[in-house]
């Protein structure tokens, strides 16, 4: 086993990408993810890669569109206000069936908000990607190690489904340091995918990267093809983790940093006499609906804990389909709940019956 290194979430994200073979980064500074572009500007030139500081997030996402069109392994990272500006570019990439990786270290909003931790871009990440009938495949790490691992894996997943992959984290994960096992940096794949542009050399038919389909039935066929890929991802890429009581009275649902808080709360609530299990979706789109639905038949209640005022809970409710009551515990605006508060709430729920 490799040695562990105490490293920050932002650095782990950047190193995870480089180690997986990402060699191109386009970005625009914004707190709390500045250590990602700073790390990239330092390290990419050392591995033959390229770092470009774009003049804006609008430019950054379109640089990524261009790089992705050539089949390069490329990424950008930003935080909420910047991700808002990237929506148009993401929509074009989905429509043009291009893979890329986008990291969102979510901060308090709406508007300029603040640089505190938040999960209020859940809808933006899982529903959005601008206009049109497409979505980002979205993954939510909950530790520094997972930031490193998942950011790396995101490149393979993006290639597999020819779709943008979003890594959704927050200001706490971005800034916190934890031991992390790093592997060797791998080189990026040299062979271009057969759909990529770069000159129709040696008699290969020319490639066109495009999202304009004036022929309506053709657009529908493209969208259905994209939808089939999402269905395929739902078969293969659903990820979740579960912790705590085997015969729970209460099921906690939380992702990312909220799941960390809940891990401790579930343990304490169980010790306090209310058997509690935590279910943590790691993939948010595709969503682990089936597992949640199965648990909904076996528990009294579900408590959804999120750093937003009821975004993630909608997916949980859609999964539960009314099988049991689903309650919300949310904080917003950069504030977080403590494990003590979550424990109290669970104990209250457990006793009220």
């Amino acid at each position, binding site marked *: 086993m490799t040695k562990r290194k105490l490293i920050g979430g932002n650095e782990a994200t950047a190193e995870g990408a480089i180690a997986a073979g990402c060699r191109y980064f386009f970005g625009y500074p914004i707190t709390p993810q500045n250590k990602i572009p700073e790390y990239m500007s330092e390290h990419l030139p050392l591995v033959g890669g390229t770092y470009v500081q774009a003049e804006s997030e609008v430019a950054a996402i379109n640089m990524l569109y261009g790089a992705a069109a050539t089949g390069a392994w490329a990424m950008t990272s930003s935080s909420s206000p910047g991700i808002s500006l990237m929506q148009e570019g993401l929509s074009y990439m989905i429509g043009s069936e291009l893979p890329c990786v986008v990291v969102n270290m979510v901060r308090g909003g709406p508007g300029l908000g603040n640089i505190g931790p938040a999960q209020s871009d859940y809808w933006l990440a899982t529903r959005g990607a601008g206009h049109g009938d497409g979505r980002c495949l979205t993954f939510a790490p909950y530790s520094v190690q997972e930031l490193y691992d998942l950011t790396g894996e995101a490149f393979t997943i993006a290639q597999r489904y020819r779709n943008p992959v979003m890594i959704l984290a927050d200001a706490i994960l971005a800034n916190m*340091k934890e031991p992390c096992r790093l592997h060797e940096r791998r080189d990026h794949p040299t062979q271009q995918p057969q759909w990529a542009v770069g000159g129709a050399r040696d008699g290969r038919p020319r490639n066109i990267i495009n999202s304009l389909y004036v022929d309506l039935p053709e657009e529908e066929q493209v969208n259905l093809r994209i939808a089939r890929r999402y269905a395929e991802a739902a078969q293969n890429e659903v990820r979740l983790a579960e912790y705590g009581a085997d015969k729970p009275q209460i099921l906690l649902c939380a992702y990312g940093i909220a799941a960390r808080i809940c*891990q401790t709360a579930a343990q304490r609530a169980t010790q306090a006499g209310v058997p509690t299990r935590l279910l943590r979706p790691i993939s948010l789109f595709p969503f682990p609906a089936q597992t949640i639905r199965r648990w909904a038949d076996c528990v009294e209640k579900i408590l959804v804990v999120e750093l937003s005022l009821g975004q993630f809970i909608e997916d949980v409710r859609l999964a539960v389909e009314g099988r049991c009551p689903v309650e919300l515990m949310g904080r917003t605006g950069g504030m977080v709940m*403590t494990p003590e508060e979550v424990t109290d709430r669970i104990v209250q729920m457990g006793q009220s019956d």
Partner: protein
Amino acid sequence: MREEVYMAGMGGQGVLLAGQILAQAAMMVGLEVSYFPLYSPEVRGGRATCTVVIANDQVGSPVVGHPAMMILMDKIAVNNHLDRLRPDGLVVVNSSLAGEEFDRDDITTITIPANDIAIDVGSERAVNMVLLGGYVAMTESVSLADIEQALREVIPERHHSFMPVNIAALHRGAQAAMKAISPTR
């Protein structure tokens, strides 16, 4: 085992560095750990706090509502945070800047004149090491020797000339803590 410590002080006192060194030491002895810093958005002269959680297996929440232990480096830190210490908790306070009198009688208070000791060992900037030494003397997860090891890893090579001062500060802090605790226990 789950050890939660919250550290607070003003920018420049080395709050974040103390937290990182503790986290590094915990990692090096094979424990799980998370270190979570928070500092005010103003560029300079702001407040700095961090939370370190050490555990045998999963760390769980890096956010702690009522920590069992605190290191408070000045008066404002005491005023802002001491009421959140868990009953029966332990606090290591820098009495050079925060005095000796506190509102709570349900906790263990270790007062250490950290600025005075730091000056005495050769650098006022070693305040954080004095207090960290005091803290380590009161807990079990890591030893002073582990902290010394961690210091070597965290502090860049070119600053290693400050190592003797830092190590002296650690040990003096630990001695001061032992002295402070002995009459009441």
